[in-house]
């Protein structure tokens, strides 16, 4: 076995590959967060809860209604997105004019409600969601067996992230969105229904989180707390990438997933905190984030 600094190359590559899988999730989740923050200046602490809801939607959809994985990939995000729109209209709307900290606290409270309720109803230990038969099995990469499903996750999240970036940066709809970020009243004066746009944006960002949740269900156990441990890391990713930057959050997500994987090889226990270390550094040295443009 060839080694690099005494660590077998196979091990490094294996962890990096797994890191890429995690990074895909980080990228998708931070993308949603960045979109929401960019337009609404709301730090959506409930993002993890929507991710969890997406996973539960897939699980319960299968258990109660027999909806299979492929249908869930579309239905779950739509359902959760609608929930998001309702939340935005009823609750978030009321804190727009205030100190942004209130938006943070409101979404924090929402996350608690969601997590607490799910915990109470379904227990803490989680249930498993079966890998769809078409994606079962593993690919022998030589240095590791990579389950086909995880390769699929990397692929689909790259597609989704790139498409979202493309829509926002290169299409007319995206231009309207970006204009709303910069000068909402003016845009409203031009006849664009800004409140609708805002609601749709929140719904869209949240739907992305739900999609990530569906993708995650065959990998991790679907449980009430799957979002809360993830959301803190995702926040760090968004801050590192630059809070309003779509591109920044995608790239940071992927890179940080890989960095985490690498840390697992050298100092496994620190893999949980390496992201925070980097975030603290970035905030001190380059406060707007690596790609931020505030």
């Amino acid at each position: 076995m060839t080694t690099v600094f005494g660590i077998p190359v196979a091990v490094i590559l294996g962890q990096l590959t797994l890191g890429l899988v995690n990074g895909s999730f980080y990228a998708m989740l931070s993308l949603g967060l960045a979109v929401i923050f960019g337009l609404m200046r709301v730090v959506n602490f409930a993002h993890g809860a929507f991710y969890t809801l997406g996973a539960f939607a897939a699980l319960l959809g299968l258990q109660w209604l027999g909806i299979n994985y492929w249908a869930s990939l579309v239905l779950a995000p739509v359902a959760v997105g609608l929930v998001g729109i309702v939340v935005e209209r009823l609750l978030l709307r009321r804190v727009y004019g205030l100190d942004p900290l209130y938006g943070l606290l409101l979404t924090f409270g929402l996350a608690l409600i969601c997590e607490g309720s799910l915990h109470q109803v379904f227990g803490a230990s989680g249930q498993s969601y079966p890998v769809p038969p078409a994606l079962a099995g593993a690919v022998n990469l030589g240095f590791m067996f990579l389950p086909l499903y995880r390769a699929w996750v990397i692929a689909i999240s790259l597609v989704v992230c790139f498409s979202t970036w493309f829509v926002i940066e290169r299409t007319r709809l995206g231009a309207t969105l970006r204009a709303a970020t910069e000068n909402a009243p003016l845009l409203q004066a031009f006849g664009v229904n800004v409140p609708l746009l805002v609601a749709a944006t929140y719904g869209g960002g949240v739907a992305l989180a739900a999609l990530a949740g569906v993708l995650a269900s065959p990998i991790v156990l679907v449980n009430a707390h799957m979002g809360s441990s993830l959301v803190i890391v995702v926040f760090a990713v968004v801050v590192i990438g630059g809070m309003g930057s779509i591109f920044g959050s995608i790239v940071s997500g992927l890179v940080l997933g890989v960095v985490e994987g690498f840390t697992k090889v050298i100092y496994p226990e620190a893999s949980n905190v390496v992201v925070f270390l980097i975030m603290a550094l970035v905030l001190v040295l380059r406060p707007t984030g690596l790609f931020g443009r505030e």
Partner: protein
Amino acid sequence: MKLRMLTLAALAGLAAAAAGQALAADEVVIGDIDDMSGVYADVEGAAGVEAIRMAIADFGGTVLGRKITLLTADHQNKPDIGAAKFREWADQNGLNLLLGGSNSGVNIAMSKVASAKKVPFFVIGAAGASLTNEDCTAYTVHYVYDTTSLANGTATAMVAAGGKTWFYLTADYAFGTQLQNAASKVVEAHGGKNLGAVRVPLGAADFSSFLLQAQASGAQVLGLSNAGTDFSNSLKAANEFGITKTMKPAALLAFDTDINSLGLQTAQGLTLTTGFYWDLTPETRAFGKRFFAKINRMPTMDQAGVYSATLTYLKAVKAAGTTDADKVMAELKKTRINDMFAKDGYIRADGVMVHEMYVMQVKTPQESKYPWDFYKVVKRMPGEEAFGPITGLCPLAPAPK
């Protein structure tokens, strides 16, 4: 200003209301603190509470003319919650017996409370052998099984079968560490080698990166030093990543419920050690059927154990004629325990309830003839062999010279 007064009064009222709880007047209070909703919820959990109720009912519902009450709480795998609840019950509810459910970390914390408050403390679900060594108290009884017996059973069997090099996937708290240590000792004593370990947080969602590290070690045996859903998930992931092709998994702690959720297809061939199996004797089968009628599952060793423990305690109280902790403990250490759970079991000076343990192998789907027909007995270990000699680490039980 009146409203402020009202607020302050309300505050005072709230505090008083929550803080004061009636002391159980002349009842015998049994408490059960367990993981009711987390990783270990199926091992004992709510079904275990039913088993306790069965025992209380079988005993007659009263002892020494006093009604028997049961209090239950969910420690959520947090030592602070378990210990605080135990202390509160001892201070405020006149607790006479505490049954400790899963999670060695929580039980170690609770054993300190048992010692301080002088309440008999029967550890049912937790495995950590330190409870009868460094952490022993005059009131602790380790009733069902411990890490020593698990290692002596499973590790010995697997080394003998050719698994000489081991790498461990360890749950990162008292239980995992102690189980890993116990197994490592056995492996080395039988001429094997421990290549290393990776610590995994309790309840981890994704084992893939840890398993890759295990595979990189090149060991023959994957020592799974975890339990409950951690165990089933890590085994499933090991299969998924093809690790079981090159490493043999060692189920250092597995319950019937785990085998049930994994299915015999995945679990076949696993070697494990248990203190109880429903299909061993006519008495165990009778208990099993009664339990199944209520719960729709066969009892795990913890659930059968907590039933037996409750009865053992109540019998001791009756014999001693009092619920005074010291007198009951003295009575307990004199008695022989003979019921469907243990034959000729006895409680040692360090608190271990010495009884027969069984090394089992999980049947193949073809060998299994009816539901819950999971195991075939590979070896019956007499209690002294399973639990080993007194180590002398417990000040109450010096090692025999």
